[in-house]
């Protein structure tokens, strides 16, 4: 199994959101949607996988590397996990190219530039290379956030409510694009959403989360 999550428990100090005994596995290249209502713990699950939060117990193994277990915790900057935040969080003081290049380390300047161009081509945004994030529309910002997360070739991509900030028309278009990009890159990915249509369109499998428990799994019927 490419991703193996076992018995993950988590509690915020304020007790507001909790996860109980989360266990699931994923194959390489598989796209899984975590579907749940607000407060079900789905964003917290992503934060645990990325290393932004430390679980109370349980283990996470991705690509045969133990990221987290009872005696072991890999810091988020060493996990090679890509994440697209709900609000994209593009660095406002950097151009699009610099945003994408931010995660590229230990390679030559030329290799960096080539990788940036490759990513811009992937998301079809070559002409926006030197603009600042505030000059982009919501949909464009999302595509750049995706390119930035994919640039360092992460072992897994996490997307937190990727369509929540988009208008209905744009959402349909971006959804199809995202699916295409996932398939082109063969990226293993988890995205959380509260919308069944989003999950069904993009994911190979849907995991239902309710009050911090996994309650059901299904393979969606494609439209």
């Amino acid at each position: 199994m490419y991703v193996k999550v076992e018995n993950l428990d988590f509690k915020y100090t304020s007790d507001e959101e909790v996860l109980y005994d989360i266990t699931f596995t994923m194959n390489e290249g598989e796209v899984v949607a975590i579907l749940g209502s607000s407060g079900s713990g789905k964003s917290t699950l992503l934060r645990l996988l990325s290393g932004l939060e430390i679980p109370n117990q349980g283990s996470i193994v991705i690509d045969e590397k133990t990221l987290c277990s009872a005696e072991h915790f890999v810091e988020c900057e060493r996990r090679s996990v890509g994440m697209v935040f709900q609000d994209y969080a593009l660095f406002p003081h950097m151009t699009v190219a610099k945003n994408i290049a931010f995660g590229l380390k230990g390679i030559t300047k030329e290799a960096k530039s080539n990788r940036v161009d490759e990513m811009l081509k992937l998301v079809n945004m070559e002409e926006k290379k030197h603009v600042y994030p505030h000059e982009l529309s919501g949909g464009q910002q999302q595509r750049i956030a995706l390119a930035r997360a994919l640039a360092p070739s992460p072992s897994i991509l996490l997307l937190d409510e990727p369509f929540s900030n988009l208008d209905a028309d744009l959402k349909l278009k971006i959804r199809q694009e995202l699916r295409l990009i996932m398939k082109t890159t063969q990226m293993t990915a988890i995205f959380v959403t509260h919308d069944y249509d989003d999950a069904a369109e993009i994911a190979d499998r849907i995991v239902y989360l309710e009050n911090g428990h996994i309650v059901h799994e299904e393979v969606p019927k494609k439209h």
Partner: protein
Amino acid sequence: MIFGRRLKNSINLFSVVSVIAGMLIIVPMLNILVELFSPASDTWRHIQTHLLRGYIVNTLLLIGFVAVFSASIGLFTAYVVTRFDFKGRRLLSWLLILPLAVPSYIAAYTYADMLSYTGTFSRALRAIGLRHGINIMTLPGAVFIFVMTLYPYVYMMVKSALEKQSASFTENARLLGASKFRSFFTIVLPLLRPALVAGTLLVVLETLNDYGVVAYFNVRVFSFAIFDAWERLGDISAAIRLSAVLMVIVFAIIFLERFLRGKRRYTLHVKNRPILRKPLVGLNRYLLPGSLWLIMLFAFFIPLFQLFYYARLTYRHVLDISFIYLVINSLTLAITATFLTILIALMIANFNRGRQSAFKRGLLKVTNLGYAIPGAVIAIAVIVFFIDIDHALYPLYRLFNPDTGRLVLTTSLAMLTFAFVLRFMAIGYNSIEAAYDKVGEKFTEAAYSLNHSKVSTLIRVDLPLIKSGLISAAIIVFIDIIKELPLTLILRPTNYDTLASRVFRYAREEMLQESAVPSLFLIAISTLLIYILTHQKKKGVRIHVRKS
């Protein structure tokens, strides 16, 4: 046709007051520029050949060092109180603002006296057989005084920016493989740039404005030179030329900042997820809070204890009926000038709401000009302006009193009040504008649609909604005015003293111990107001507006 209709529609109380205020600000400044084209005097030629280079070098050295150290201390203190949790954090987070209540010149007199041969510190050292070689009355000494009393401007701005900075950015940087060190220098710090620069710019402008410290320490910078040309050499034309050079330096600094900023922006709409404070561990548990207390000690407690000690020695002969007059003078002057500043700023803020135009933007720039121009320059501009007005009005004066002198307004408090309003308008305006921004225009438009006039809407709808912003604006302006020295020294009528000018006079006459009581009064008033300012923000009207 349309233009004519628009013009007619836009003539109202707010626009008329705004335009008059704008003109009253710009005309004295233009006077200075016009004076530049008059033939140069011998004094100016002497200054130009022998002194000007020194003034420029000293001024740049002073503001350069003050800027770097204030920015560093302001950033460090703000970062520690917003990012870490430790005992006494809440108390320190507002105590660190308090050095603003200590006017720079008072800190300078106190330190200079403490470190002098007969001062408390030197005597204490000699008692245990030690000596110190510190001479604070130098340029580095002035840097120390300015940094200690002005860093809170940077602290307040950076703290507010750090509190608003979303955790998303730093989390994202770390997920992209950046270490904590790299994410601080590539993300946190650059995003703080506007706050850091704005705070540091205020510190630089206040340093350029100062006269009390540089005069006492004999540090030959521009404000010193302007006073010297005006008072000692009696050459107003040379003072004006020096003022013009100083204005060029100020505008060059402001434009350089704008140019360097370029197209970049430092904000983007992201969900505000505050960064959780981390508890301090290990040695840092003592080191970080300890360093904050150390800054407080030098910036606030040491000057304060020293002043209390002096006050105990001198209060019996300082606290007399003349002192009460002094307090009344200071308070009435500060209250009147604050009231006028806020009233005019409110009119301008109202005028500037709604549809934007090039005219409005221009007027706004003029309104904000005053704070960028050092007090000594404003003083010279205002005095020239008032002499012109007095000359123009002389025939009118004679109608009422045939024996009148030529200078009526110039020798009255009106001139000083006018200068205060001119200098502090920007501060009042910006606080009020920020309050209006928070409220939005929906309530005002609703009132207009219910057939309320502009004035009625202002009184019944706008004022209650922006009350807390208005109080903040008044407090900040009041504190600035009551501490103000350069304008007061040049423009006050003969034999008229305020707390600030009396402190300066005592210091100049080497009666530092006597200056303690008025100094403490000034610090007490400012401290009380800063306390109200920092603690009133939590209250206020709660407003829910649906963003369209």
